[in-house]
C-alpha cells in the first residue's frame, strides 16, 4: 500500500508539472494502477465468506477494462491533435474547435 501511495504521488507530480499530452496520459495510467493496487491489497483483509472476497479483484478487472478504453480514446485524440497542430503541447491547445 505504501508502493501504491508512492505511485499515486508520482502520478500527481506528473499531472501537475508536465505539459506533453503523452506524459499526462502516463501520469493518469500510473494513478489508475495505484488505485487498482490498493483495491487488491485491501481485498485481502476482508473476512472470508462465500466468494465475497473476490469483490476487490472483480472491481479491478472492470477498472482495467475501463482504463484501456480511456487510453484508446486519448491516443486517438492525440493523433488528431498532432495532425491539426503538429504539436501536442497542452498549454498551446486553447481552442477546442476542430
Amino acid at each position, binding site marked *: *500500500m*505504501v*508502493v501504491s*501511495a*508512492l*505511485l*499515486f*504521488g*508520482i*502520478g*500527481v*507530480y506528473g*499531472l*501537475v*508539472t*508536465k*505539459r*506533453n499530452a*503523452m*506524459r499526462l*496520459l*502516463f501520469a493518469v495510467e*500510473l494513478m489508475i*494502477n495505484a488505485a*487498482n*493496487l490498493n483495491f*487488491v*491489497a485491501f*481485498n*485481502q*483483509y*476482508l*473476512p*472470508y465468506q462465500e*466468494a465475497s*472476497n*473476490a469483490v476487490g*479483484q*472483480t472491481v*479491478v*478487472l*472492470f477498472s*482495467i*477494462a*475501463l*482504463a*484501456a*478504453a*480511456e*487510453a*484508446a*480514446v486519448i*491516443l*486517438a485524440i*492525440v*493523433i*488528431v491533435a498532432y495532425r491539426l497542430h*503538429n504539436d*501536442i*503541447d497542452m498549454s498551446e491547445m486553447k481552442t477546442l474547435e476542430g
Partner: protein
Amino acid sequence: MAVVTVGGAIVSLEAKELVYGAIGLAGSLFGVATLFFLLNAPYVAVFQLAVYIGAVAVLILFTVMLVRQEGWAKEVRPKSTMSVAGVIAAVAVILTLTFAVLATDLSRYTVVANTATYVDVGRLISTGYAPVLEVLALVLAASIVGALALSRVDREGDPS
C-alpha cells in the same frame, strides 16, 4: 518488485526521449502485475499482463513512433514554479496516504489465507455484476467507435 514499479514510474515521466518513457511505463505496469501475483490475485495479474502490457503499452509505443518528428523531441521545460508545486503536491499526497495507511490498525487483522480463486471471480462477474459487465461492454464498443471516428482520415471530396 516495488523498486521496479516505482522506478519504472519515475523513468516514464522523466526520461528525455518519449520512447524510453513509454518503455518505463510498461516496466511499471509489469511491476504492478507481479505485485498482483504476490497478493494472491493471479487472475487479475494475468489480466493486467494481457490488457496493459499486451494492448495499452503497444498502443502507446505505436502512437509515440507514429507521431514522432523533429519538433517532437524538444519538450518545453515547465516553469520552475510549476515544478516546485508539483513536487510539493506529490510529497504531500505521498505522506498523507502513507500515514493514513500506517495509522490504521490493519496489522491486527490477519490476511485471509484462502483468498478468492478465479472461479469465485468468474461466478461474481456472471451473477451479481452481470449488469456492470454489459454496461462495460457498451462503453468499450462506444470508445472503439469513437476512436475510429476521431482518427479517420478525411479524404478530399469525401462527402462528410
